[in-house]
């Protein structure tokens, strides 16, 4: 009887983690990207805000706001939900604070694997993983007797077959929008070829090589099988293409699978939409994809009281089994208690295949930026692969010199 009572009490008070976070004061203001999993995460954090002020800005333009907003003193945001790439500029400018003390004090339930440590200091707490992987239309592949592609060479062959069958004009899609998206595709494909972006231990670029050329040629082949407007298509645009049934093979973020497989749109397409791991390329073992984590960081230029309140609210979400169970479909959570569902196949496969994380180097952002604008002319057929890579290196070098990396 006593046991039952105790467990009942636990059910009443123990499961709701609210007991753990009666935050009395402070103000919480969060900057985050805008996709469903992050909204869920921030909502969960809001659930335990107590009497603290709580504000959140969800914006797909978060990258453009982050550095200026966190540079101000006091900073506009007390926390920023960042990823491998976006934590780098914050580190470069010394805008985020180490979390060791807070983790020790309030980090109950956060797993060690969630901690991002740099030089022995905890700089962020990750809560979900992401990658880009293949999506395919089961019905189309079956009808034409095509096996699910495992390599990009097979993706090309399959797309050509689909096009030849007259079923679809542009059977392949990926976010090739000039700028960040296109550069990301290059980074993935180049890593799949086993390439290195910089000469070891330096900020000197080293992409103008055979692997770089092979990467560009593969991107061009895939672009030729995509909608001719590919240079203007971001993740959202290709999602729309997919939902209108124009595409049978697609490389897209795992975090988008939720909206792709929801009840909106054509039920037949949704039912035939299947996920698989990222493809490899050129006979390589590691996938042509990068692994990403999303986690929270705290602004340095903000009072300790605000930081504490913010950490407690966010830590509540970052160790929340209930959220993970309720929103198992929205993301691949790194939080304890997560049971991967069919929508997490992509990331899990990528981890199994030993995909590399996106390079967290201080000068990587400059390389990414140079790639995004300088390889466009190659894809348009206006210059050779070697010339494009030479341009990327030159554009990167000027920027890196201005930033003091060279």
């Amino acid at each position, binding site marked *: 009887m006593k046991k039952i009572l105790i467990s009942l009490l636990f059910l009443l008070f123990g499961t709701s983690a609210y007991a753990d976070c009666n935050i009395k004061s402070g103000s919480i203001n969060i900057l985050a990207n805008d996709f469903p999993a992050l909204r869920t995460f921030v909502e969960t954090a809001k659930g335990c805000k107590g009497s603290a002020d709580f504000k959140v800005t969800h914006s797909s333009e978060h*990258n*453009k706001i982050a*550095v*200026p907003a966190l540079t101000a003193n006091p900073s506009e945001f007390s926390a920023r939900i960042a990823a491998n790439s*976006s934590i780098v*500029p914050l*580190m*470069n400018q*010394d805008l985020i604070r180490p979390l060791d003390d807070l983790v020790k004090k309030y980090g109950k339930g956060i797993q060690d*694997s*969630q*901690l*991002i*440590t*740099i*030089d022995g200091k905890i700089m962020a707490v*990750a809560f979900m*993983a992401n990658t880009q992987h293949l999506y395919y239309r089961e019905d189309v592949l079956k009808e034409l007797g095509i096996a699910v592609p495992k390599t990009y060479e097979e993706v090309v062959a399959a797309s050509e077959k689909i096009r030849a069958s007259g079923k679809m*004009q542009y059977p392949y899609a990926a976010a090739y*929008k*000039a*700028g*960040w998206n296109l550069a990301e595709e290059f980074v993935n494909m180049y890593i799949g070829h086993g390439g290195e972006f910089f000469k070891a*231990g330096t*900020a000197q670029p080293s992409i103008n090589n055979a692997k770089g050329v092979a990467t560009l040629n593969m991107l061009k082949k895939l672009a030729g099988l995509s*909608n*001719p*407007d*590919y*240079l*203007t298509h971001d993740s959202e645009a290709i999602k729309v293409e997919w939902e209108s049934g124009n595409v049978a093979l697609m490389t897209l973020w795992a975090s988008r699978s939720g909206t792709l497989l929801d009840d909106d749109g054509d039920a037949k397409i949704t039912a035939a939409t299947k996920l698989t791991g990222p493809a490899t390329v050129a006979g390589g073992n590691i996938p042509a994809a990068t*692994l990403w*984590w999303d986690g929270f960081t705290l602004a340095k230029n903000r009072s300790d009281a605000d930081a504490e309140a913010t950490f407690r609210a966010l830590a509540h979400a970052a160790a929340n089994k209930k959220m993970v169970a309720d929103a198992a479909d929205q993301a691949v959570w*790194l939080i304890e208690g997560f049971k991967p569902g069919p929508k997490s196949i992509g990331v899990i496969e990528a*981890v199994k295949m030993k995909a590399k*994380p996106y*390079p*967290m180097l*201080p000068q990587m*952002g*400059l390389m*990414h*930026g140079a790639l*995004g*604008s300088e390889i*466009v*002319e190659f894809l*348009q057929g206006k*210059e050779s692969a070697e*010339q494009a890579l030479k*341009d990327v290196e*030159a*554009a990167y*070098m*000027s*920027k890196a*010199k*201005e*930033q*003091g990396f060279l």
Partner: protein
Amino acid sequence: MPNKTFFWFFLPTGLAMILFIGLPIISTGIQSFYAQHDQVVKEVKKCDPFGCTVSIVVDQEKTSKIREEKPLGKFNGFGTYVDRNHLAIEEIRKFWNETNSFGEFVDQVTNLPFYKALIFTLTYCLFVTPNVLLLGFIIALSLNAVTRRIRGPLIFGTILPMIVTPLVGSLVLFWMIDAEGIIGANLQMLMDDPYLSLKSSKTLTWITIIIYGIWHHSPFAFVVFYAALQTVPQEPVEAAIIDGASRWQRVRHIVLPHIYPVVTFVALISLMDNFRVFEPIIGFSAEGSAQSLSWLIYDNLVNEEVILFGSAAATSMMTIVGIAILLAPVLIRTWKEFRTAR
């Protein structure tokens, strides 16, 4: 107006201009001469959910010391101005020595980001400005000839493109010219070419943006011309009609000379506006095919995750110089006329 009255009259505006335009330009100018300090990096162990690696980070202790001493950064003189992403003096010299034909040289130079952007910006100016003037004038003349009763609604309809926010206007057109949009799909049918895409071809993207520019800017020219037309005195026009002058002769010899100062004004303003072309590039997602000087500045400020203040400042200063050069002939002419008038 006596000089003293003018001075007091102008003072508030002048102060506001110094505060909000003059000082920022000076500050931008100063920034353009500085680059970031040399980054002190160190090797550290980084761990994330996917494992641990040895990697490099910026050494904050050492960096912050240098930053405190010289917050502006490292003095770079005209270094940023002449680097490869701007005037690229060094590269151009190299191309000149290494290329065999002039055509090849031009190809190489126009492959540099600054010149690529400059060529688009100038092309845009050269095509849009005269067409805006012409179209605006023709619309103003025709509307001036319409009966008064329907003139109101017609004028409203004509200035609509100017009322619509540039981004919204370009987005509407962007969707229409999509390969599956109403214009894009019909063009494919007409040309019988399923691969035709207005957005992927560089030339077609340029043409689209230029047409959009003309569409968007004409109403401004029209409004000013229309107002000017109301001031044309009726007597000489009537006299000309009695003398048997044709409509074209009346426009050419009476109306145009009368509104000439206004034409100069509109030309000046549109040149300035067009040189700063920016919104349509974003609206049409045309970054891949068309880059303008303003877009370069935007790119330096937002697209890199690392903000390139020096680069952006240098491009801004060169944009200002560019506008000054473009406007010089018109300004000199106006000045001369002003002198002779006195």
